[in-house]
């Protein structure tokens, strides 16, 4: 466990670091809130004027759907697309990977913790303002309180596991980025796919009914959609053990894959530039 101590140090350092950029954080915050509001408006229009009564067929009513939109804005920094560390990306692209490799640390877990730390800091900053604004909005656009206290707890625990899975997905993205000569095509594909299937655009429950089983079981639902279902009450807290087990399984698979791929690509790493 020799990597644990330095990793904890990195965790502390980057948590502090990510709390420091205040102005940019404010700009981002207001944008996120506006963004959430626009999405809420879209959802409300569809629920109000839609010809088919989708609230019944999908098991998600208008309050839950709007709340979902706000929860996505709150948990934004826990999903892969927003978690790719810009510094690591630059290091890969400018050839500083060489220097990173000189450190007596496993590169995969070094980057994993680093990503986790800076993102979790952003997440903590995001929760209080977005949640309070969203809860104070007028009726159809409002974030509703959790279904129950137990639901909230289940949602939070599940979201944390989802966050680790998210870091593992980002780990795979780093490996893809290291194949510099592939360009960013594969990375774009992977991020678009995760964005869609994690339900960050649209709650997975509003997707067609015939796809629901697949959507529930695929790994990306574990990132965001499943944890949020606990909060909304569309999944009962009693389902938590099963869901958590599935999430953990996906996380282990993704970490193992990412780590192995990293070892493989480090064997024939070509540092471009320097």
């Amino acid at each position, binding site marked *: 466990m020799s990597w644990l101590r330095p990793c904890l140090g990195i965790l502390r350092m980057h948590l502090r670091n990510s709390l420091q950029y205040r102005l*940019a954080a404010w700009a981002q915050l207001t944008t996120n809130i506006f963004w959430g509001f626009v999405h809420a408006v*879209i959802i409300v229009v569809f629920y109000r004027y839609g010809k088919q009564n989708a609230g019944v067929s999908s098991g998600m009513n208008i309050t839950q759907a709007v709340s979902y939109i706000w929860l996505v804005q709150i948990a934004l920094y826990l999903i892969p697309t927003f978690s790719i560390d810009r510094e690591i990306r630059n290091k890969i692209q400018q050839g500083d990977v060489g220097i990173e490799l000189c450190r007596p640390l496993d590169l995969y877990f070094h980057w994993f913790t680093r990503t986790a730390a800076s993102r979790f800091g952003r997440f903590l900053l995001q929760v209080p303002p977005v949640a309070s604004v969203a809860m104070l909005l007028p009726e159809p656009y409002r974030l509703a309180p959790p279904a129950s206290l137990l639901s909230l707890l289940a949602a939070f625990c599940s979201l944390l596991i989802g966050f680790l899975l998210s870091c593992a997905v980002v780990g795979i993205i780093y490996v893809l980025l290291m194949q510099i000569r592939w360009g960013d*095509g594969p990375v*774009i*594909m992977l991020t678009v796919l995760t964005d869609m299937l994690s339900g960050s655009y649209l709650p997975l429950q*509003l*997707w*067609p009914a015939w796809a629901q089983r697949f959507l529930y079981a695929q790994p990306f639902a574990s990132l965001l959609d499943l944890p949020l279902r606990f909060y909304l009450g569309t999944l009962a807290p009693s389902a938590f053990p099963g869901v958590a087990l599935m999430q953990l399984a996906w996380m282990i698979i993704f970490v193992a894959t990412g780590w192995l791929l990293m070892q493989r690509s480090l064997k024939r790493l070509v540092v471009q530039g320097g």
Partner: protein
Amino acid sequence: MNGFALYWRYLKMNLLAGLQYKGWPMQLIGVLVTVITDPLEVLLLFARFGSIGDWPATRVMLVYGLSLTAFGLAELFSRGFDYFPSQVRTGSFDRILLRPRSTFLQILGTRFHLHRLSRVVGGLFVIVWSLTKQGVSLKLQQLLLLLCALIGGYLVYTGIFVISSAVAFWTVQSLDWVNIFTNGSYQVAKVPPPLLPGWLRNTFTFFMPMFVCSYYPAANVCGWEGVPVGLGWLALPAGIAFFTASLVVWRVGVRHYASTGS
């Protein structure tokens, strides 16, 4: 060498640089994925909810497609401005000021990614799909109108990029607010404009004339009731006006520029 030739050279250079990557075919596949997923959300919503009021998916998709294509064009040809704020921070804008060419043109040419074509292709596909589904047959005049709408929309989005770049002269950092007007504005086009809350509709009509370049031309071409026909032709003038205003802001910004380092 005149301005256009220079810009063309910039594009060619960036394109060839992009082709150096072994994986550029992968990028094209990535493009395909984006093309499919961009309008997918709207289509999924319509699949669940059916039509909204008397607006079926086909109608909304025309407005959405027009703004999506316009945004795609701006991303394709004016991408340099999207990346510009980092040039202020690192001080590399100094280098650009030294060259005896228009700063505007040089920034415009700093980036060109072929995969940005994806939104344009996707958007055009959506427009054609929507028009065929609605059974609208285009006469020359209406084709011209749609073309004007796209050019106007392109100018509006480029204007947004330029203004956000100019703001960076003061803030040094790039601020996320620009996203409200870029990505945010075509998100809004996913629902029929008459059903939006008034202030949101007005923002994207009078402040940033995005609906002027998508909704009104679409209404004109398809003959939707309740919308004055002539408004469709405002797209190009509105685009030009917005773009000119953004140029003014840019000029003021450049004059205000103080180097931040090298």
